[in-house]
């Protein structure tokens, strides 16, 4: 795939629907094949029961005790979203705009959880209305993701934010955590909306439009909890067994790529977090550094102004550092984290493709051994061959698309980081240069009076 070299000119058009439409692709998933559970959960995270996903531990902030809104909603207008997201599809063609905002705490007798407001604006015919507003909890997003994985096992379903984060940076269910999660959920839905296939998924539509009770009853129709476990276990098992043996070269390459990519992105994620931490410590020390100069100036006469000048410069640089940190946490850190999750998703997708192929392979082997029921087998094999071909094509196309997006996202994230640092240094430079200018003026004034006898 990468062998194609540079992609010149306009990005490739979205995958055209083939036959019955790839969106409605795989006919009748056999009841046994369950939804795949979240493969994205990193090892460090505590495995919680589903009901506890958005349970809240009362944090120090007592305002959470009432059904309150948290941070002022960052309503993102559809037009600003066009600037935020670079998608291969021409932005002017987008006809579905989604925002996630307004986290709200809900308390019942049994539990406490958070819902987010999901607003959808669309001009599509298949939607009865052109605007919808619903409230969804994290559980609902999980459900959507597993339905999508179920329906499209070899498509790359975007990552969801983790259940909760054990890393030091953010406290469980603090405002910061909720805001980070909200942004990630927003991104999740928009990535789906921009996906040429997933955007037409029926469950996606229901997620966006159904009222709470409608969604509940719809959810109950799907396969239960236990069946979720099945598919991934089998997928892992089959790849261990060697669904690899007839794997097309292209997918082996993908696998190798993903292994290295996954390694590197994890390290980058760690590096970025470490830089944030060091910058924070630097900021803390700088906060103390400036005021000492002001304190000193109180005992001095002649140099009091110079000392105060230095104090003011240090304080301004301190604020600039804060801005630099904010830039990091708003842009680079979330994107790197997203791709850490993506790398796990992609490994899962490759395994599922292998599993589909191994079903075919094992049927072929069985045919070779049994002479009887040849006709029946042939029909089955035919269907499986179609299934494999569909899966491979879907994955190939989605992989190309994913790589394009990844390149785009990385480029913009790192360029943004460089920009942040540039602004930081430019601001600090201006501060110190203006201090220096003020001092040299004074110096010349003093030199004249120094020649006293």
């Amino acid at each position, binding site marked *: 795939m990468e062998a194609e070299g540079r992609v010149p000119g306009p990005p490739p058009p979205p995958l055209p629907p083939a036959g019955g439409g790839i969106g409605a692709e795989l006919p009748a998933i056999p009841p046994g094949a369950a939804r795949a559970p979240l493969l994205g959960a990193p090892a460090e995270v505590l495995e919680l029961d589903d009901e506890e996903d958005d349970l809240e531990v009362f944090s120090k902030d007592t305002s959470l005790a009432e059904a309150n809104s948290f941070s002022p909603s960052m309503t993102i207008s559809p037009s600003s979203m066009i600037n935020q997201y670079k998608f291969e599809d021409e932005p002017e063609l987008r006809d579905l705009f989604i925002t996630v905002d307004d986290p709200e705490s809900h308390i019942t007798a049994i539990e406490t959880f958070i819902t987010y407001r999901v607003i959808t604006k669309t001009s599509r015919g298949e939607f009865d209305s052109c605007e919808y507003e619903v409230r969804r909890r994290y559980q609902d997003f999980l459900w959507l993701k597993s339905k999508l994985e179920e329906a499209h096992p070899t498509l790359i379903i975007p990552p969801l934010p983790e259940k909760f984060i054990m890393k030091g940076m953010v406290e469980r269910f603090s405002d910061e955590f909720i805001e980070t999660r909200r942004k990630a959920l927003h991104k999740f839905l928009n990535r789906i909306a921009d996906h040429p296939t997933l955007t037409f998924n029926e469950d996606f539509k229901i997620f966006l439009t159904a009222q709470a009770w409608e969604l509940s009853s719809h959810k109950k129709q799907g396969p239960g909890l236990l069946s979720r476990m099945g598919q991934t276990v089998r997928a892992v098992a089959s790849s261990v067994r060697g669904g690899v043996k007839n794997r097309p070269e292209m997918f082996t390459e993908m696998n190798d790529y993903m292994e290295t990519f996954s390694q590197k992105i994890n390290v980058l994620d760690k590096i970025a977090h470490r830089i944030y931490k060091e910058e924070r410590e630097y900021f803390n020390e700088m906060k103390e550094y400036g005021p000492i100069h002001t304190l000193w100036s109180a005992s001095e006469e002649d*140099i009091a102004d110079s000392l105060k000048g230095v104090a003011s410069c240090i304080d301004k640089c301190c604020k600039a550092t804060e801005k630099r940190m904010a830039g990091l946490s708003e842009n680079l850190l979330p994107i790197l984290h997203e791709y850490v999750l993506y790398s796990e998703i992609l490994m899962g997708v490759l395994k599922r493709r292998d599993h589909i192929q191994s079903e075919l392979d094992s049927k072929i082997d069985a045919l070779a051994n049994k002479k009887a029921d040849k006709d029946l087998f042939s029909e089955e094999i035919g269907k499986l061959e179609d299934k494999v071909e569909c899966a491979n094509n879907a994955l190939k196309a989605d992989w190309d698309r994913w790589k394009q997006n990844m390149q785009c996202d990385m480029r913009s994230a*790192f360029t943004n980081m460089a920009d942040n640092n540039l602004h930081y240094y430019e601001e600090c430079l201006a501060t*110190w240069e203006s201090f220096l200018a003020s001092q040299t003026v004074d110096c010349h004034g003093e030199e004249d009076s120094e020649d006293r006898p």
Partner: protein
Amino acid sequence: EPLIPMESSEAEPSESRPEEDGAAPGNCLAKKMEITVSEAEKRTGRNAMNMQETYTAYLIETRAVESQNEGQCSPVDSLWRRYSEFELLRNYLLVTYPHIVVPPLPEKRADFVWHKLSADNMDPDFVERRRIGLENFLLRVASHPVLCQDKIFYSFLTQEGGWKEMVNETGFQLKADSRLKALNATFRVKNPDKRFTELKHYSDELQSVISHLLRVRARVADRLYGVYKVHGNYGRVFSEWSAIEKEMGDGLQSAGHHMDVYAASIDDILEEEEHYADQLKEYLFYAEALRAVCRKHELMQYDLEMAAQDLTSKKQQCEELATGTMRTFSLKGMTSKLFGQETPEQREAKIKILEEQIQEGEEQLKSKNLEGRDFVKSAWADIERFKEQKNRDLKEALISYAVMQISMCKKGIQVWTNAKECFSKM
């Protein structure tokens, strides 16, 4: 042409020096002689207890400055001295010129160290910074209007052998008032000189604020080091990542290189900043020298008051004996009442002794008063000189700090501009 050695000046405080004004006078040693501490060398030797020790020796080079330079270079004289000899010189100056704010030596042990710096006295960076500090000390003394004329100082610069003996022969250790060393002892001075009290407070404040500043600066340096160095990790990972990418490869690789440059740049930046810290440290130690002068004044004042008190009580005793009245209780008086009065002859003898003592005491008090006034006059002159020097130097230091920050920012802008270009090509 050899330099004309200056007259030895065991400057009695009573001799006031007409040259003691702000600027370094024309006949000051520093103007006549180039002084450098050009090298440092590790030595091993045997100490006083015949145990082997390692120490560093410093090479002092001196050369006469020809005022009418026809391109002739006078020869360079040199000798080696170790830190303990510098300490001896300074102690001598402190005792001999108590009214002078004597320039401090660079620190004996590395203090205010941030993690990357070594606290080891033998560490080459520490030795280098000490070499510069010692040179600075010598230049300060050589440009001081009073100190530069001292013979012992001159010999320190020019006479390798027998210098130690020469210093000890001055007997300065005996002159040293041990009370000055007792830093915590307070002397109840009834009429303190307000100016000196204020100066003492100022020196305490200066010491406290500069220590605090140096401590925090070291922590800031530590953190800054961390920020820069972690970016170096990007370089390695970008390089490894670029191996699996086709289109992004070049951009990643070259961006990684810039990250390495960025990470490496902090070493020079912080080394330069260390020199700034040394400038502040000099004034941290100068604060101590300032306090020493105040202390000396305090002691003189105390001695004066004690002497005056003693004289007053003797006068009173004398009067009582003469008039036969006992206004103040004395044990002698009581015992004589109990065991019989003195004879008139005995009384006469006592009075005579007392009168002699009173006369002596009055002369002493007079000279002490004179001493005190002269001390205050010359001390205050040097303090004014010191204040101006301090203001000049510190302002310059702050400006140089700003220049360093500006340079650091410019380097940062360059690196990140380059990195941004690479990223945008990814």
